């Protein structure tokens, strides 16, 4: 028992736990923000996973062909926007079932990335290594005890993630456009009678979701690893979806939920790395469950009912 307390103590006193929490959360925050944008305007976007994947691939592709990771970032986000545009086109213009459309886009993303991987890089599975976005080096700050190691050199994506939350919150709750987004997401008919172009506002929301989700994906490839591997998003899009719901479709809430999940994952990694508990291999399975169980408990125990925008997922079709 004692060594467990000791181990857990170690985890929480180790700056890496906090840094890891940040890095694990970053893709989730960005993708969840995408979800918030889309669903605030009333379009469910289950395709986050697929958009992330495209973002990740585009990032590497751009960096590979130009040698400049920032162009990679641009290409990645462009791919993300394209995917989102497709989703928007189908579900807004043609009142498509948004969940099927999303599912389809996930398949498309898996197919396209896998296919292009072979066609462009001549090998399946993973691309060559490419230049990735340089870390933000805070110089001497790195030497500040405890905080240095955490914030000393983080990927710019981490800052982007938190910036996107602030940006999202202000846009949605403090601007005219945000007001229109919320109205369109809750009662498009009413917005329409006031001469608001429901379709355009929804296009905006969905397209933005493409931008953010793609950033989240690009982080994984050209932020973390400098290469793309098949299905490297590995379900993060769905976790982000969950985070958005736990966060009650609110940027800050979604961020908190993402952080929670990131922390749970970091905790799991750090705890497994404690030498004082020499664990039998089978316990690894139990450890793997930790993040998901924590999420379940939180959702069931503490979060009240979360309330989707009233018109979320309902196509708006005028006769």
């Amino acid at each position, binding site marked *: 028992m004692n060594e467990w307390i000791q181990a857990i103590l170690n985890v929480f006193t180790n700056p890496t736990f906090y840094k890891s929490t940040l890095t694990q959360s970053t893709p989730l925050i960005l993708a969840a923000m995408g979800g918030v944008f889309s669903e605030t305007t009333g379009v469910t976007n289950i395709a986050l996973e697929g958009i992330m994947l495209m973002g990740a691939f585009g990032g590497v592709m751009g960096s590979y062909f130009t040698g400049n990771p920032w162009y990679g970032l641009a290409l990645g986000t462009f791919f993300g926007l394209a995917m989102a545009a497709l989703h928007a086109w189908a579900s807004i213009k*043609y009142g*498509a079932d948004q*969940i*099927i459309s999303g599912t389809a886009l996930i*398949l498309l993303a898996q197919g*396209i990335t896998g296919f292009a991987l072979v*066609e462009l890089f001549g090998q399946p599975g993973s691309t060559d290594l490419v230049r990735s976005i340089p870390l933000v080096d805070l110089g001497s700050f790195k030497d500040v005890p405890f905080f240095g190691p955490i914030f000393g050199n983080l990927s710019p994506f981490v800052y982007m993630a938190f910036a996107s939350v602030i940006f999202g919150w202000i846009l949605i709750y403090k601007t005219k456009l945000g007001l229109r987004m919320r109205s369109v997401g809750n009662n498009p008919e009413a917005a329409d009678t006031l001469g608001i172009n429901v379709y355009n506002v929804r296009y905006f929301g969905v397209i933005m979701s493409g931008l953010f989700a793609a950033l989240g994906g690009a982080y994984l490839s050209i932020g973390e690893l400098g290469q793309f591997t098949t299905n490297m998003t590995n379900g993060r899009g769905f976790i982000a979806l969950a985070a958005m*719901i736990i966060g009650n479709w609110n940027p800050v809430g979604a961020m908190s939920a993402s952080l929670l999940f990131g922390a749970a994952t970091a905790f799991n990694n750090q705890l497994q790395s404690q030498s004082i508990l020499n664990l039998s291999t089978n316990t690894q*399975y139990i450890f793997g469950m930790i993040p998901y169980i924590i999420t379940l408990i939180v*959702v069931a125990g503490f979060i009240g009912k979360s309330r989707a925008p009233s018109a979320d997922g309902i196509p708006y079709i005028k006769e």
Partner: protein
Amino acid sequence: MNVKKYLLNEKVIISLLSVLISLVIAAIVMIVIGKNPLVAYAALFYGAFGTKEAIIDNLMKASPLILTGLAVGFGFRAGLFNIGANGQVIIGALLSAYVGTLVGSYPFFLSIPLVMIAGMLGGAAWAAIAGWLKAYRGAHEVITTIMLNYVATFIANYVVNGPFQAPGGVPKSPSIAYSAQFPNIMSVGATSLSTIIFVSLAAIVVIYVIIQRTTIGYEVKAVGFNPYAAEYGGISIGKNVVLAMAISGALAGLAGTTQVVGVYGRYFGALGGSMGFDGITIALIGQNDPIGIALAAFLISSIRTGSNQMQIAGVPKDLVVIIQGIIIFLVAANRIIKTIRIRRRKEAEA
């Protein structure tokens, strides 16, 4: 009634057109990468229907998809989005595999029902967790079912590597008793058509009847359409949410069972594959209508089965995934096609 017929025809036409269009788009891609689409599609068709094996394989792939499709579809009827079919498949399969190893001494008419019940109970219980959490703790089922999927996967990996591992150190369960295995209708080479296909067909009928003809179906739909009115009508929302999830999960669990008792004879590996996730697509393409779901399941299984031959014909496996994506996308956006057709008609008239 005629109206419904008309719609159904319309639906079928749309789906077919979607398939057609996406095949055309994919063909273009193939030409671009210098493959001959005709050859590829010949292979696709041959791979799905060309031989006895193909047809059998196709049916065997379709039957669990029908079940997960029904599972998700039933959830939708109650206004629930069960993303968790995958987890329910796993738990169901594990339980029936476990029971399957115990019933060796029983005659098949006991052991077969037992494994099926085990699978359904497993899936039902697993889904009911999410149902309960929604009904009484207000937890959104999309979150809980996603999380439960992961947990189920870990549990499965654990038991087949530990307590429930077959001798030989490979992560798979011991094989189930012979008396618990579903008989085969016919075998061609190593490919066998198992009687599990009947389970799926039966499920279609049962679910259709439950939805259309029973009090349960009435209450579940009422809760799905308008919980307030349901409560006003003396229908317990909580009870029905849990019940609907449980039924949905039972179907998914049964899908798991069929794989254990009809395909692998044991639990092993990623037995569920993506069939839970496919269930969502299938349910939606099939418009939550049991018949539609059966057709949708067959559509997907045909593509999957044919795709292997396509690979042999030199088409990358990912291109097949792309084709699937496009088909589903077009089915989702069936209005695109509708509009096109209406324009056509207008032009025709003019």
